[in-house]
């Protein structure tokens, strides 16, 4: 404690002294007690801090993951391909400007691929479905297509695995020899580039580039597949914008994909919520039990302070400040650790970074201070009516 000066002449300095006496020593003493308590009881303080850090880290990691994981899973679901389909009314072709209009409406919020289809005949008169599309876009949109070699030059075709026997006598010849297709008297001469296998209708089709297809048949695209990014609400909004942008077409969702995605995401989210609540609750309760034990254990300090004349308010303030400091420190360290855990999970599982969410920090700090305060105040109020002498005598 600071020693008061022996003499003071002016009343002014006396007033200053009185002020500094009533505040200064108190404040510095208060801080010193807080600090010394932490330093002297390193072991105890560390274990209490550890509990807070663990709780805060778990909470931060779960809250960060919770928001990000849904976006990441939605992206995984886009590998299922289109969730919106645009078709001409009653099987008619779409107007030529539909694709650019759809693209400008989407503005990068998804992938698009156009398809046009006719039934043509092979040179020996067999009917076969021929489709025109944009190979670069299909490659992005329909990633499950198993293609050995994508066409890269004009007049090259992609052959469905089940069509091979139709265009040629042997499967080996079908992937190397040129062939002809006839549509309404027009002949196109094509070279096979590779085969496509999907296990669905694509296996029975021949694919050309859209420009070759249009030059040959004069038929425009009749279907545009759209894989729109985002949550269910965002996809619905995009669908609405698309139907306004292309009034001549029918825009509808691929229910199979949209509903499956909603179900799986919903269940995963619920599981995450359950896990988050469980983990945060456990960690919080462990903090409570650890801290309560700690404070209860210090009833000797409490008794000495009280015996030396500290008021109950001062004591409450002291323990509360100590708890708050512990809570805040633990929360900040825990936040950093938690971000690290979330980032690690993101890297290991999704091969993509998970952005730290600083909005979580105030919540974590506030909640951990609240929990530490609660766990400090509870034992103090229990000890409130106990005489210091009883505690000091160890009874």
């Amino acid at each position: 404690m600071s020693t008061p000066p022996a003499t003071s002449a002016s009343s002014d300095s006396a007033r200053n002294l009185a002020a500094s006496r009533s505040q200064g020593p108190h404040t510095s003493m208060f801080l010193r007690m807080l600090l010394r308590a932490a330093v002297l009881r390193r072991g105890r303080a560390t274990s209490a801090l550890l509990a807070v850090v663990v709780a805060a880290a778990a909470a931060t990691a779960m809250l960060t993951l919770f928001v990000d994981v849904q976006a990441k899973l939605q992206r995984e679901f886009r590998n299922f391909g289109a969730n919106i389909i645009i078709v001409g009314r009653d099987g008619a072709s779409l107007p030529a400007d539909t694709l650019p209009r759809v693209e400008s409406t989407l503005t990068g919020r998804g992938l698009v691929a156009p398809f046009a289809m006719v039934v043509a005949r092979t040179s020996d008169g067999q009917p076969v479905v021929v489709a025109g599309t944009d190979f670069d876009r299909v490659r992005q949109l329909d990633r499950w297509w198993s293609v050995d070699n994508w066409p890269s030059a004009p007049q090259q075709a992609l052959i469905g695995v089940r069509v091979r026997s139709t265009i040629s006598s042997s499967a080996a010849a079908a992937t190397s020899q040129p062939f002809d297709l006839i549509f309404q008297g027009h002949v196109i001469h094509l070279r096979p580039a590779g085969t496509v296998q999907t296990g669905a209708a694509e296996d029975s089709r021949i694919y050309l580039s859209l420009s070759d297809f249009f030059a040959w048949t004069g038929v425009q695209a009749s279907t545009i597949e759209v894989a729109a990014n985002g949550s269910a609400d965002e996809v619905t909004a995009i669908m609405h914008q698309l139907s306004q942008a292309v009034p001549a077409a029918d825009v509808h969702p691929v229910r199979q994909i949209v509903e499956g995605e909603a179900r799986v995401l919903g269940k995963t989210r619920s599981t995450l919520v359950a896990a988050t609540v469980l983990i945060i609750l456990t960690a919080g309760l462990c903090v409570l039990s650890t801290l309560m034990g700690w404070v209860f254990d210090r009833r000797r300090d409490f008794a000495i302070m009280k015996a030396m004349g500290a008021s109950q308010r001062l004591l409450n303030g002291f323990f509360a400040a100590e708890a708050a400091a512990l809570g805040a420190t633990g929360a900040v360290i825990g936040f950093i650790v938690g971000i690290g855990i979330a980032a690690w999970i993101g890297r290991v599982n999704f091969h993509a970074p998970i952005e730290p969410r600083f909005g979580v920090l105030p919540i974590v700090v506030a909640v951990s201070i609240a929990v530490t305060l609660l766990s400090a105040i509870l034992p103090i109020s229990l000890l409130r009516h106990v005489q210091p002498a009883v505690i000091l005598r160890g009874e």
Partner: protein
Amino acid sequence: MFVRLVYESFRRQKRRKLLAGAAITLGVTVATAMIAVATDIGDKINRELRTIGANLLVTPQEDSLDVEIGGVNLKPPSDGAFLDEADLPKIKSTFWHNNIAGFAPMLPVNVKIERDGQQQDVTLLGTYFAKQLSFGKDNFTTGVRSTHPWWRVSGSWPGDNSRDILIGEKLAGRLGEKSGDELSVSGRQFRVSGILSTGATEDDQIVAPLAIAQEILGKPGAVRRVYVSALTKPEDALARRDPKSLSGPMYDRWYCSPYPQSIAYQLQEAIPHSHAEQIRQVAQNEGTVLTRIEGLIFLITLASLLASALAVSAAMATAIFERRAEVGLMKALGASKLAVASIFFAEATLLALIGGLAGFAAGGLLARQVGRSIFDSQIGIQPVLLPVVLVVAVLVTFAGSAAAIRRAVQLDPVFALRGEL
């Protein structure tokens, strides 16, 4: 004496033991529940993924090429090969029959419908809705209602043995048909029991029980293709190998893993003259989604195990720090370090066992609750987990106490008794 010390410590220090015990119980509860959820989540999400539709397609081996645009097949309906309906229950004879969530046969037929004296060509699709079948002693129900859960009917679903049909919503709109109306299809009268909405080509078609389609086509027992919805395992390098190139034990491993490829192979074996293949859009992607979700829950479980271990450690350390005076007294009375440490470890073990048992029971209940409220099904907990959980609880409690016990034991009894340090 030793037993008495431990017993008295539990009897007299109820509050402390309760706090430490509560921490252990909670930690074990969460750990058990998370492990139970993590081991079961793959199966649960797999079932949810089945709502995206069938992942395997069985077709006749010598089928001619489909010429299909916008759901209208231009191939003559009697052309090509068919599967035999009588062979379908054999799907349940395959090795992975428990993984077959359902199947639906399809038989498209071109029909003429008559409306106000005008004729119109449409496709009638024959299928099972929720057909009762039996194979051996197995009775099961299968059809589009389980394989195509996104199909929605306003009105009622037709019975599989009835003469009722469904009309796709676009077709119904054009015809002005409502459920309950009569419709004449290729000279036969049917009752429309409901309007079907699928968001796909079936919206322009008529969907009827399989027997009606076979009757119109004049080929009893004929099936064009079968959609099979199976619970599969994400494919890996082994799955992509050609079964013919595999050696004996490798082949057995391939055959006995529920890969889409091996289930397709087994379907081909079960149904004569058939060709089964995975529908890549569904089969390939559900593998990735499943892997991601499983991985996520696994990592979270790992993190939560770590968190509960640390929380238990902190609680134990605190509980031991509180008792320095006691240690001092014991040592002053001549107890060896080993004796003191073993008392603490015995107490820790007892706490861990009690907390572990209570936590395991609570965790099992919690996992069941999670399963019931989220997935509408049971999440079971393997009894095998109990000894594992108990051992881990004891180890974690030990690890948490060790540092604190070491410090307590090394303390000079004089300081400890005087309450210093």
